Each structure stands twice: as C-alpha cells, then as structure tokens.
C-alpha cells in the first residue's frame, strides 16, 4: 500500500499523519512539497491538518492555490483516493474539490476535545470498515470547523449519501449545519473531515477508532 502526504508550510499535523500511515501500512508515505507538480502513483493522497500559510487569509485559501494542488486535483479526477483532514479539508473546499465552506466555530474559540461521530454512510471506500450508524470516538482540534453549504447543496449532499460522518450524541463542537463532520465527493474518492482519525489509531492514543478509516481507504482488511 503506497501513500503520499502533501506538505505545505504551516501544516503541523503532517508528522502525526506520517506516523499513522507508517504504522498502518508498514511503510512511510511519500512526502510531496507544495511546489511539486507531480505526485507519484499511490493508493491514497492525504492533506494533513495545521495552519497552512498561517491561515491568515481564509483557512486553506492560499494552500489551495499552490502548484501541488493542481496535481492533487488531477489525481482526484483520475479516481485516486484523496483525503483532507482539518486544514486539509479546508484546502479541498477552497480548491473546489468538495462543496461548501468551513466557518469560525460557533463559540469563536479553538476547541480540542474528543467527540462522537456517527458513520452516516458506511457504503464508501473510506468508511467501509465501519457499520452504518456506528458511533465512533474521534478527537477534534480546530478553530474553523463550522461546516456550511447552501440549501440546494445540502439537499444534494444528504440525498446522495455524501455526508459520511456526523457529530453524534450532542457533541457537535463547532455549530456545523446538520452536524456534518465529514463529506465525500459525488464520485466517493475524495473525503474531507474536520476530526483527526490519525490521533486515534493505537493503544497509546487510548483507542483505535480512527484506524478503520485508513484501512478502508487502502483496502486493508481489519
């Protein structure tokens, strides 16, 4: 299983993601710097979390315009699995690879805590390791995770099963519409989510609920 992690200055959960992918696949991911225009053939491309370019403009707005993102878009078009977590999700939205926007948390504060996620659609390549309706634990750590989309887009997302994770049991930490925590593209090969599955994959993390997501994406039997 080959994976790649996109690196942009200011991302800071790259090391977490690299460590998680290394533990799950048994080999370190390829890293791709922001100026590169080619991404090698891999099974999964991940844009990790952080504050690309400080997020001094809209979150992810500058990162989405770096050369490497054209290569990511091309790979996504070819059907390669692409996953953006936290700032990575924000970048995918800004790059137009997923619909909607992420606004400031409703509390206007950064929030780091464990939440509950409901697997809203277990019928995607990413979520096939979970059961539909399954409640999993997952940490969040963000300031701008308040998902929003217009009514028409929401209807489509909900209607076509593109909402894959929802904050459950009253744990919505940011005010996201419909408790949306993660969505996939219509083709199902691009996932964006605010929570951090890479921080819950082993005993030292106090649980491994995030692991099945990577295993699903990579087709590794759990």
């Amino acid at each position, binding site marked *: 299983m080959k994976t790649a992690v996109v690196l942009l*200055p*200011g991302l*800071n*959960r790259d*090391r*977490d993601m690299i*460590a*998680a992918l290394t533990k799950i696949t048994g080999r370190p991911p390829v890293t791709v710097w922001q100026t590169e225009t080619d991404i090698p053939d891999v099974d999964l491309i991940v844009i990790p979390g*952080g*504050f690309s*370019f*400080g*997020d*001094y403009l809209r979150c992810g707005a500058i990162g989405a315009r770096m050369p490497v993102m054209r290569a990511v878009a091309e790979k996504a078009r070819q059907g390669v699995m692409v996953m953006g977590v936290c700032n990575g999700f924000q970048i995918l939205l800004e790059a137009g690879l997923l619909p909607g926007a992420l606004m400031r948390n409703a509390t206007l*504060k*950064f*929030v*780091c*805590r464990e939440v509950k996620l409901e697997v809203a659609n277990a019928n995607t390549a990413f979520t096939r390791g979970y059961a539909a309706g399954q409640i999993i634990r997952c*940490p969040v*750590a963000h*300031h701008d995770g308040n998902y929003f989309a217009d009514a028409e887009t929401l209807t489509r997302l909900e209607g076509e099963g593109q909402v894959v994770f929802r904050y459950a049991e009253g744990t919505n930490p940011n005010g996201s519409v419909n408790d949306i925590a993660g969505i996939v593209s219509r083709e199902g090969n691009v996932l964006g989510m605010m929570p*951090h599955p*890479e*921080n819950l994959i082993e005993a*030292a*993390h106090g649980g491994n609920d995030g692991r099945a997501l990577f295993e699903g994406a990579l087709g590794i039997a759990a």
Partner: protein
Amino acid sequence: MTIPNTVPITEDLVSAHGLKPDEYQRILGLIGREPSFTELGIFSAMWNEHCSYKSSKRWLRTLPTKGERVIHGPGENAGVVDIGDGDCVVFKMESHNHPSYIEPYQGAATGVGGILRDVFTMGARPVAAMNALRFGEPNHPKTRHLVAGVVSGVGGYGNAFGVPTVGGEVEFDASYNGNCLVNAFAAGIAKTDGIFLSKAEGVGLPVVYLGAKTGRDGVGGATMASAEFDDQIEEKRPTVQVGDPFTEKCLLEACLELMASGAVIAIQDMGAAGLTCSAVEMGAKGDLGIELDLDKVPVREERMSAYEMMLSESQERMLMVLRPEMEDDAAAIFRKWGLDFAIVGKTTDDLRFSVLHQGEEVANLPIKELGDQAPEYDRPWLVPATPKPLADDDVPEADVADALLTLLASPNLSSRRWVWEQYDTLIQGNSLQLPGGDAGVVRVDGHATKALAFSSDVTPRYCEADPFEGGKQAVAECWRNLTATGALPLAATDNLNFGNPERPEIMGQFVRAIEGIGEACRALGFPIVSGNVSLYNETNGKGIMPTPTIGGVGLIDDWQTMKRAAFAADGEAILLVGAPPSWGTHLGQSAYLRDVHGRRDGPPPPVDLDKEKRVGDFVRRLIRDGVVTACHDLSDGGLAVALAEMAMASGVGATVNQVNDISPVPVFFGEDQGRYLVTLGIDPQGPQMADLWREADALGIFMPWIGSTGGRELKLGEARAVSVAALRDVHEGWFPTFMG
C-alpha cells in the same frame, strides 16, 4: 520619523532608560566617554533587570544546578538533561507578565513563541508546552478580559506552531489584580550530540540574520518589563511585540534542517532586546568581537534608526554564525521556507561590539563588559515574619460534604477544562496524559517505551506566609506530581515572579524562597537547569504574592506502567501513603480556610524533605512493580478534594469508612505534605498486602487503608454521600459560568 544618533544624553534620558545615576557612572568609567544615543540604548537593554539578573544573580548562584544527567545547566537558552539512548530533553520556563497585562493576546502569544524559540535554538524539536497563569480576583473588572485574551493568545500561538499543551496552572488572587502572571514552559527532544550553543567560534566568519523582518515593535520591551506599573500603563502598549506563529513554525523547520546540514557553528534567538542581546551573547561567550552592519538587516518599516533596530523585539528572528563554505546551502533552505536570510556582520578578534549604520559607526563598545560587567547588587533584605500557628482549639467546623462542594466549585479548585480545551493537547500524537491530572505525559518519539512527564507548580499563598517553606513546597509538589505518574523526576526550571527587589521585604521573600527551593532541590536530587526571574511585579506600590513557579520534567521508562489519577475499577482498596497518624492535621493557609471560612492565616504546611523523598521513592516503586492501579498526590483541598478528583476523572465512587474517632475537618481538608492516594489491584487482606505494609513500616511510612472504590457516590466518613455526577456538575460549572 527617524531618531538620529546625536540625541543629547541628559539625566532624564538616562533615567528614562531605566539606568540609575550610579549605573550611568559605571558606563562612563567603562567606555571612558559619553555614550552615543544608540550605545545608551544598548546598555539599557543589557543592564536592565530582565536581561542582567543584577538583583538576583547573587542568589541564583546558590541553587543546585548539577546532576548526573545534566548536560547543560543555566546560562544557555534552555537546560539540557540526558534521557538515555542518545536523547536529551531541553526545557525552560519564562515569564511574559508585563506584556500580557498590557496586551493579553499578543503578550501571551509571544511568551509562548519566545520559549519555543529558546528550545529549538538548541537543536531540539518542541514536544510539550505548559502555562502557569495567574490572574486577579474573579470580580475585578479586568480579570475576564485578561483570562480571555491570555488563553486565546497561548492557544493561538501554540496550536498553530504545533506543540501540545499538556499541563499548567490557572489561579486567581487579588494580589494579581494589577499584574497578571504568564509563565510559559516548553520542552523539546534532541540528540545529545546534536545540541547547538550560542558561543561563536572563529574570526572573520559571517554573522547571519534569519527569520522575520525587523520592525519597530517591542522597542524597549525588556526595559519596560523591568519597571513597576502605574496607572499610565496603557501608554506602554506599543512596547508589546506581535507574534507570527506561522513564521515561527517555518523558522523551526528551517533551523532544524540547517542544523542537520552541518552549517551552523553558533546560534542565538533574538528574544528580549533582540539584535543587541543575541549579538553580544554570541561574541562574549566566544571571546570574539562582533561587527554588525545595520544596512543589511531585513526591515519591514521605513527609516528605522540604529537605535530602533538594536532595541526592536520583533519576533521570530535568529542570529547564527555559519560555516562560510555552506552559505549557499543555508540560503537555499531558508528560501524554501520563505524566510529572510541576510549576512549582517562578521566575527572579529578585537572584542568590540561595533555597529555600523549608513556608513557611520553608531556604537563601539567592549563586548565582554557589556555582558559580564553589568552591575550586580546585594540588595538589603529583611527576614520575613513567620505567622503564628493556629491555636489547637481553632478548627473552624463545617459540614464535610458541603465544604467539599464549596471547594470544588471555587475559582481556584474548579475544573480548568474551559481553558485547556482551547489548547491543542493532542497534536504530534504522543500525548498520554492531558491537563487535569497530576502531570502531562508524552511519549518519546522514536522510542518504543519511553515517555516524559511534565508538571508546573507553586502555592503562592504558602510562599506569602513563609517564603522558605513555600519555596520548598513548590519543588516538592512538582516532584510529587511527576512521581504520581510513575515518572522519575529528573530536573526542573524555575520562573521566579516577585515584586520590587529594591524593597527589603520583597527582597527577603526572594532570598528565602530561593533558599527553600535550593534546599528542596538538593534533598530530592532535582537540580534547576534553567530559569527566569521576573521582578517588579507591582502596581502602584503593591506587590504580587511571591510566586516561584517550578516546572519539572520526569522520565517514565515504560509508559505502559504509567499511572493516572482516575480510579481504575470498583472494589479496590484505597491507601493514603505518607499520612501522619491522624491522616491529616494542617489547616494553616489551607484552601479550606480560605474558600470556606474566608481566612488566610497560619503558617503553611511544613515539608519534611527526607520523608518526602522516602514516600515518593516508595510510591514510584509500587507503581513500577505494577501493584498500583491509580495514583494521585494530595495538594490544595487535602484528602477530600483528592478523592473527589479521582472519582470525577473515572466516574467511579468511593467510601472512606475508617475514620473512627478522628476529627473530620483536618482529616479531610488538612494540607499536610508528602502524601499520595493509591488504589491497589491486590487483596488488602492478603499476604502480598501484609508484605507491603511491613516494607512501608520498615521505611517509617504510614500507609493506612482508608476505604474502597465502588458505586457512583463519594462517601467521606459520617458525611452524607454525594454523587460523582453532582461533584462533576459543580466542578465543571464554575469556569464556563464565570467566562459567560
């Protein structure tokens, strides 16, 4: 506007630079002429209290700083301690009190940025941060504003930089009304053979400026931090720097890449008094002169004068001496990270610090004397009076359950979740224990079993009542918190926050606290390897409580044996290790007296250091032997609060039922030192337990079996049972309600 270098040097100007008349005479004597305006600025930057430690140095020298594992003690950017397998931990704590009071978000943010830079300047990747925050009383009109700003500033910088905040303190007291404390701690991990120092080596080598551009922010900041506040404090806002965590993150990655390339000979971050302090430090330590050409310094404002450039405290900047043959490689790394890189000077052999600006020499000073010949004071001090003990019959009564609920809902003992959920506690994926327990714990990246524990502690009301015992207690409490996780305490950093040292009673607090800290560190084998002194924490002549914050680091060989405070299961025996015969006795200066009865009298609990060590070593051994299932130290609020914390962390209740004929208030709320609660996974009536009791007995440690875990209520002796849910409600409620 440009300030020329020809500003006449008047008495007023000298005084505005924080230099006393005798200090100015000393300058005249050293250089044999009147200083230029820029030179006066340089002296003021180097000789202020913040940079020169002129009032504290004499006493700091008495602290134990050496130990088997200590690689670098005080005097470097941070302390360095061996953790085995070729790795070391690099750490320090530093205050940003004055800036945070003036501009809480940026003051706190740049405090975090500064301490992170101290750590990675030495070649270490930061892996953990803590913050000890102290604010005025909750109903003071500025307090909420300061809490909100400081907490979001700490989070805003640390979260974006990418370091987990794993511990800290938040406390409220009227003595901080006009002077909040922001003490930032950071720790990093490096290879023992990959430590970088500030000492320059080699003549004629390029001095390189890296990082962000220089602006006018923070000009005179260190001098500001060495003065008392008055009501005109708002006028000092322009002296606070502005932080840019994105640039700092890039600077971290670029510096570590550059260090790995072998290009770096010496490196020094620009902190207080920026370019001045860093250049003088590199030259003076290496017995070299430094020549700077300010026309080469990257600036972001127009027409900056030499004076402003030399005193700017713009953040995220570094000075390095590089191998000349590797200049191109170095420049490429910095370009990749979008950072400025400029050769701004060279090392010389004349031991002069010379500064050129627009073709003119604006300063030429003896470099060694700038640092080494700073004034040093043996300030007069008064032995603080010790408060009278409480009379034997002076045990104010209260219902134990009510008092516990009052304490858990109080400003100082309630949950700090509102604060630490604004910090990224999980980033890097190595956090094993988060804030809210005894110590924060992170795994050592790249090692299968090792972890580091971090704790920050001081009890200022103890220090106020008796600085010597309070100083001891701060160290012992930190050592105890590390021990409670199973960690072996390695070393500590101190952040000494006091009032105006020119007042003998304040100087007396300082001297006695240091003596207490020194005594405890020696007894516990817990050397001080780095630190920071913050004096003049006064507003309108009223000082803060003496607050010597201790930040400690401990090593856990195998994190699978680590213990947490949460009760592990129902039906386990609870032991009070290190108890006096009646379990608890000391109510002087207790949280119970303060928060239930509004009294702040009596002496603080004394710390028996010999006993402290024996009990702690015994508890640590029990943890490592695997018989302990949960462990928590006793501190503010005594036995009752400690039990409640263990219950709230787990949801498991407990019954303490062995309290026959003992007066319940001192038992449950006494703050006697050197005590731990442990639960055991063995039969308390079985032979293994009998062996443990015999062992404890032989060590002179009293370890009564006080009750058992189980149920969903906490029942303390004869008091009514309180549900764990009700405890949590009041404990979690105070902070969010306060902040609205």
